[in-house]
């Protein structure tokens, strides 16, 4: 709800009387956050935890995310579950590009965040956020299904707080914000380019 449209007290009072007042933005975000459809793919062992989260014991369906789509055209969320090899990175970025807006990315596990235990490997991408924007990071090797569910809830919180209009509206609603990101190509020794400088903001190391 944008500010100043309805008094919160009046709203609560109306709700007590059985009248439910909402705004377009709240309705839209409510629908969106409760039906996040992930793209169905797994890269490494984190995918097993993702599968466990989708199965009956952890049951991601409680959060509306059980509809794993085999096509990026129908997916809202990309769960990068596992080690991204340099061979696989262009395909991941291309799949992300083929998803329609609004789209979100969960970087699951140490490998997808930074390369994890294989960071020194010549063939491992050191974090998927070098090429595509990531919304939620889950640490762990692998993270347990509960951690994925927590990330899912964090993403729901983020979606719920996105604005439809105004100056600081959601990124995907801004026409100048790109929906596609350049796909890296295989270079002689590394992917070319090694990172997309427009999306990749490496943490700065500051010594005190």
């Amino acid at each position, binding site marked *: 709800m944008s500010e100043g449209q309805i008094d919160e007290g009046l709203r609560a009072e109306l709700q007590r009387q059985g009248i439910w007042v909402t705004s377009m933005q709240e309705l839209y975000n409510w629908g969106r956050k409760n039906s996040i459809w992930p793209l169905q793919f797994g890269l490494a062992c984190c995918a097993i935890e993702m599968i466990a989260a989708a199965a009956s014991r952890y049951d991601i369906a409680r959060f509306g995310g059980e509809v794993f789509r085999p096509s990026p055209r129908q997916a809202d969320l990309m769960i990068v579950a596992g080690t991204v090899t340099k061979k696989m990175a262009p*395909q991941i970025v*291309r799949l992300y590009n*083929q998803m329609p807006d609004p789209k979100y990315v969960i970087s699951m596990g140490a490998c997808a965040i930074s390369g994890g235990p294989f960071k020194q490997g010549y063939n491992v991408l050191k974090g998927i956020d070098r090429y595509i924007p990531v919304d939620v990071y889950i640490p762990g090797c692998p993270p347990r299904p509960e951690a994925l569910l927590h990330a899912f809830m964090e993403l729901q919180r983020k979606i719920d707080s996105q604005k439809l209009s105004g100056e600081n509206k959601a990124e995907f*609603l801004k*026409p100048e914000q*790109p929906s*596609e990101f350049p796909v890296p190509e295989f270079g002689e020794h590394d992917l070319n380019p090694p990172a997309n400088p427009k999306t990749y903001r490496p943490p700065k190391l500051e010594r005190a």
Partner: protein
Amino acid sequence: MTPDPYLFIVIFAGVALMFPLLPLGLAWMWRRFFQPPKPGAQKNAIYECGVESVGEAQIQFRSQYYLYAIIFLIFDVEAVFLVPFAVAFSGLPLGAFIAILVFLLLLIEGLVWAWGKGCLNWGPTRTGT
């Protein structure tokens, strides 16, 4: 006064029409007023599991594979009958034994016929017509 019995058909038709049109219309309005369109070369490209598609999608396949598949299917079904036949083999009466033999012979004869027709040849040259 009872309503016209055809009225229900009109109501059903209206609901059937509105059910798909309403979400489509809402989606169109959403795109019109909120979501800026962001088409792109890769977004509109053919989905091939993330790999770039090669060549044209509308190419001609050899029909030879179809014949192979049909012959395989027949013998696949035969295997389903052969397993209970083998399990019950020692206790089978003579009539049942002859019946299954006739079944097998019919299939073998079909295979020989297909062989003679050249269906098992996987090459550019076709023998037989």
